[in-house]
């Protein structure tokens, strides 16, 4: 058995060693498949990126050197050539390896927060931003305006002076 290391991005730094549980003949990360059309080849690449290698730390089927990843790529190739749809291929994977294998989690009740969380954050963010803006507008009424004008004048003077100095230096 040959120890293999699976690395991904910054995992390089920590480099947890993962011992492959499969024979060393499966080490080839590069497999060569003949496709009939460019679209098939593209689908093969896209699908290989959508599924997670079930054996590795954190790698998709494309980047994983693991043995089972190569087997699964072979199955994807077979199903593409048999004319199966992406949905059928996904169902095939799901029936055998469960949700773990999908890098794009299915939208279910349990993943609702995952998929709509960012949108929720955005709405909260917009709401907070507007609250701050409104408050900032109301907390400096009247007197604030005159102070602002005063400041602006000072700022202008300041800028002019600064520019003057800068050009003097130049």
């Amino acid at each position, binding site marked *: 058995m*040959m*120890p*293999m*290391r699976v*690395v*991904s*991005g*910054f*995992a*390089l*730094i*920590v*480099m*947890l*060693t*993962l011992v492959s549980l499969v024979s060393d003949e499966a*080490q*080839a*990360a*590069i*497999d*060569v498949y003949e496709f009939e059309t460019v679209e098939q080849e593209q689908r093969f690449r896209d699908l290989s*990126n959508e599924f997670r290698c079930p054996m590795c*730390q*954190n*790698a*998709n089927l494309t*980047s994983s050197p693991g043995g089972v990843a190569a087997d699964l790529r072979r199955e994807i190739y077979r199903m593409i050539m048999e004319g199966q749809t992406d949905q059928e291929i996904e169902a095939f994977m799901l029936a055998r390896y*469960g*949700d*773990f*294998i999908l*890098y*794009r*989690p299915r939208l279910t009740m*349990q993943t609702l*927060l*995952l998929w709509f*969380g*960012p949108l929720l*954050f*955005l709405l909260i*963010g917009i709401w*907070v*931003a507007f609250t701050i*803006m409104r408050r*900032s*507008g109301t*907390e400096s009424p009247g007197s*604030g305006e005159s102070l*602002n004008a005063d400041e602006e004048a*000072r700022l202008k*003077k*300041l800028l002019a*002076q*600064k*520019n003057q100095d800068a*050009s003097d*230096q*130049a």
Partner: protein
Amino acid sequence: MIPELGNFSLILAFGLSILLGVIPMIGAARDNLLWMRLARPLTAGIFVFLSISLLILGYSFVTDDFSVAFVANHSNSALPIQYKMTAVWGGHEGSFLFWTWMLSGWMLAVTVFSKAMPDNFVARVLAIMGLICVGYTLFMLATSNPFDRVLPLPPADGADLNAALQDFAFIIHPPSLYMGYVGFSVVFAFAIAALISGRLDAAWARWCRPWANAAWAILTLGLSLGSWWAYYELGWGGWWAWDPVENPPLITWLLGAALIHSLAATEKRGVFKSWTVLLAIMAFASSLLGTFITRSGLLTSVHAFATDPTRGVYILGFLGLIIGGSLVLYAIRAPALKSEFGFGSWSREVFLLANNMILVVASAAILLGTLYPMVYQAISGGDLISVGPPYFNTIFVPLMGILVVLMAIGPISRWKKTSATYLRQQLTRVAIAAVVLGVAIPVVLTLEVPIAAIGTAVLALWVTFAMASDLWTKSGNKSTRLAGLKSLSLSYWGMQLAHFGFIMTMAGACLTSIYSIERSVLLQAGQSAELGNYTFVFNGTEPYQGPNFIADEASISVIRDEEFLFNLYAQKRLYTASGTPATHMGIDGRFFRDLFVSLGDPRAGGAWSMTLYVKPFVRWIWTGTIFIALGGILAVTDKRYRRYKVRRGEAVSVDSKQKTGDQTSAVSGGELTS
């Protein structure tokens, strides 16, 4: 004996950290000048002893002292000398020592560049960093001591440094990443010191800004180097994997970006004060979170790590103490940090607010995606899901799109209020030019209507033109254009450069995702394969002997339009000590495209499998980050921060209500001395 000295030195640093965390803090509270001023010598002591520790660990590597467990596990007598020295950060224990040493380096920098700050403030900042240092050194001594020995029977030779780490990037990537990461502890210490003293004014923001900028700029480089390294080392052309280990630094980077923008508003206008402090805390918290995820093996764990959660529990406890404590302190003290100035709805403040909002939402979304599988597992009782690149891209790309739209408007807008007419006048031409050229260029070049590329081009040109337009307007009030450009401050140039870099990185990332092509082929010597406009001819392989590996080196000629361009050399290596196979890409990188070959393995009949890649614009990603970092550094060097030093006496009494006046005198005072 020598490694024990290193250990002893580490213990001394631990002791000094405790003193630093306590004495100056009490001194600042009781106004005891002597106690406060102990901060600087104590810091120097910590730095010296950690340096001794680090040097001794390095010495153990160079002298092949395999009785030290860490050396035995991460080195080998045949390892080239440059990797022996840097193998110090090639594993958990050593890299943590290196990390802590970096922290002491930042602390030392604070002692050097804080002459202008009041004693009680410096004392508090250093004391807080001292407390962080206590946590790190104790962690090493308790759970991960790099000086642990394998006695009485040390191995004859080491297990070797991991093959994937034996690369030039390994020498520079971890130092820059750590340095940027750790740098946020300075800003954090500033924020906590401000909370304790209740003093947060323009002067505070001005002290804080260079540190935040510097840490962020260096973190940018660290991230970028990691991405570049992954790209050419891993062999499948990926440059960002949305891995749980690489997401936290990105979160820190995004929060850091939000922080430096928010600090700008706090300094110039005295607004967003408590928000700035919260961001500083969150940025540091995210860096600790990254440490936690990486070091505990959470989310990435293989069995061996998960069974020993001691390290994770320790870091989590530390995290809870430091961050929990800070956030409680924040909740209690934040009401004291009143923002003073109002602003109108089209002001620069509003755009900075929007920028912050997007960056924080993006950070939160990445955190959500990173931790969701763990939460899901905890709640569902063991069910596993994966959240990977398809999810993160779906979430992240639109948010960055909004950010880029705002990025054009923010720098043009003015503080306090900008007339809508002015914005319209500035941006109408920009918008028209961006849309026309952004549509025309991709269509002409590809003879199709590539929607994604058009979107990228329009957004990139929108910001670039807005930038150019702003430069034109702001340099117009001088006798000559050149004088006008010269009169602009370094901060302004830094901002423009960083924004330009960001656009370049984003454009590169989008375009390379759209246009990269690859093909896996099986070739015998003399056979060729077509990809894009290029023909790759396989010339065969030759054996190659490296210092600690053997390899087959393939030569591949690249031909375009029947013209020979160059040869690419790709290797399939076998590291002899560990028996680890590794690939070494053959890459030709140009400004507009990379060609690269990743060598697979030999098959029957002398054929080799290999993957060929054509990756347009991929280099823009890293080139852009260099501009971002340079922009950040340029902003640090702005005269404004040095000017301040000449007026330290008065600054102490300045509060934010007098800020405008203070600025005026600060500028004139500075000009007089320069």
